[in-house]
């Protein structure tokens, strides 16, 4: 693989930076919540079309890391470059990056006062200035893709958790993002609904979407991930291709973690 970024060699990463193929680049990123050092020297390069799965115990900083990529959290040190644009305090740039980066949350975060269709068309109409008709057409296309076009005129509260999460994915896709971030998308779902959401994500991966997924669904990681990252104490502890990661973990923490979640 072309991506040879690793913990120990941030310099290599820098020198190899070829702007068009790199989707996300994090260089020496640090973040603190007050006194608490949540992210410690994160170095990561995600190539276009790559699928990264991030796992780790709770409180390890994995959610915080991907939330930094669209500036839902602010990093205090280091560089984050998304699609060739560096994240700074420039609000305009942040909005530009957010337009290109879709995010799916653990608790869906659909807008309960809007119908499913309105949820999907709001941002295209008001952020991308798309005519309402086109936006609705695109929304219906993606709702069909996530297999719930018939729910378009209902409100989020009338849908099951799995359906809501698929709407959330469709809502992000309507903005035609270059990168999709998933923050534990199946953790709040009833067990029988996990599969429908994972299937949607798998089909998205098969189409070549750049994805960063925080999840504990190791089956999903095995199936679609190009690389699996294990985080603990705010650091990237181990990173490898899924085959090697699962069959031959190197670090003690990784072995312990995998031993606990894979039965």
């Amino acid at each position: 693989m072309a991506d040879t970024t690793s913990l120990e060699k941030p310099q290599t990463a820098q020198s190899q930076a070829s702007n068009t193929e790199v989707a996300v680049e994090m260089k020496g990123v640090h973040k603190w919540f007050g006194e608490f050092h949540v992210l410690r020297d994160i170095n990561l390069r995600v190539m276009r079309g790559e699928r990264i799965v991030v796992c780790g115990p709770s409180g390890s900083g994995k959610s915080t890391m991907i939330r930094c990529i669209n500036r839902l959290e602010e990093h205090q040190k280091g560089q984050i470059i998304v699609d060739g644009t560096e994240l700074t305090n420039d609000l305009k740039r942040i909005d530009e990056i957010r337009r290109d980066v879709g995010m799916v949350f653990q608790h869906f975060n659909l807008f309960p006062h809007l119908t499913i269709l309105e949820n999907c068309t709001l941002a295209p109409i008001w952020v991308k200035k798309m005519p309402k008709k086109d936006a609705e057409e695109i929304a219906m296309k993606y709702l069909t893709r996530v297999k719930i076009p018939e729910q378009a005129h209902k409100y989020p509260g009338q849908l099951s958790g799995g359906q809501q999460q698929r709407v959330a994915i469709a809502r992000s896709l309507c903005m035609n993002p270059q990168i999709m971030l998933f923050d534990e998308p199946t953790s709040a779902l009833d067990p029988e609904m996990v599969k429908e959401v994972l299937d949607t994500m798998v089909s998205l991966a098969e189409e070549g979407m750049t994805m960063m997924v925080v999840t504990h669904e190791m089956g999903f990681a095995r199936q679609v991930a190009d690389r699996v990252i294990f985080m603990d104490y705010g650091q990237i502890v181990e990173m490898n291709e899924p085959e090697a990661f699962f069959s031959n973990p190197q670090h003690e923490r990784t072995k312990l973690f995998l031993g606990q979640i894979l039965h």
Partner: protein
Amino acid sequence: MTVMTPQRSFVRTASEEALPPPRTVAGPLAWVKENLFSGPINTAVTVLMAWFLFWIVPPILDYLFFSAVWTGQDGSACREDTTGREVGACWAFVIDRVNYFLYGSYPADLRWRPNLFFLVLAIGIVWMLWLDAPRRGLGAIYFFVVVPILSYWLLAGFPAIGLSNVPTGVWGGILVTIVVSAVGIVISLPVGVLLALGRRSHLPIVRLVCVIVIEFTRGVPLITVLFMANTMLPLFLAEGITVDRLVRPLIGVAFFASAYMAEVVRGGLQAIPKGQYEGAMSLGLSYPKMMYFIVLPQALRIVIPGIVNTFIGLFKDTTLVSIVGIFDLIRTVESARIDPLWSAPSVNYSGYAFAAIFYFFCCWGMSWYSQSVERRLAASEKR
């Protein structure tokens, strides 16, 4: 030896018919039993309330209708010594003075102008409040742009098109009450929302200014605000600029109501989960769009009862402008009842009874409307 063993298997062969419920489960009799006499405490409360209603309702009806005087030319029609019977409300007095209660001293030949104003305002209110009305966007423009301008021309005058000037000093009665509360209500909601947003802002200066405005305005009585608006406002302005004596309390009332509204709205903003902000931000919505499309619609919906509560309070508080010399409804009642022509004991109470009925129906209307909106919104979200 035969032992009763439970049936092991069962297959239904015929379907059970649906039967009407017994009379103790459904129907009026069941309702009465369930709701009024379900237990000893409930029964006692029912009996107590029945006795209370029996004690209070007949005298009220008697006062308002059966013993009331409906016709008459002066106070003698409403006095016991001349009518020879007990006299309830003296509606003859209210009917005789109703134009004064409506318009104050507004010139009699120009009263078509306030009438037209009432019509213009009523159209705007119905257009705004009727949720299924056609062209509601146009309705908003009409309400917030056309109505204020037309109202000003109609009431204060616009000599260029032949509407002579009418000084605000002669305005009075329900006209003034409506003008003061309409201005207060229309200004307090947007200003209150801005103050609430400012108070939650990350910018320290903006936050500080909003906190000071809110806490200062909320921390002093309305009467103080009105006196300050009346006497101090002219001092702040450059020499030569005078503020109309009706506009001064208008500003005071609007300020006061905005501060209360800000706190109501802030309560709604705090109830919106962080995920809603994050969802909006992740889609690239800017702060104003996020607030306008996502946060405020939900926040304001939560606090509809609080908003209407503030409106009702404001509507009744407008009576306080009489203290700075404005002839609102209460003040016109006051001055009408001491008119020697209508000197009768029952006249005093009748004027206030009329004012009470007017205020009650206005406030009850607001309350009823807000409840119907809440029900409708709740239904549209769940269903």
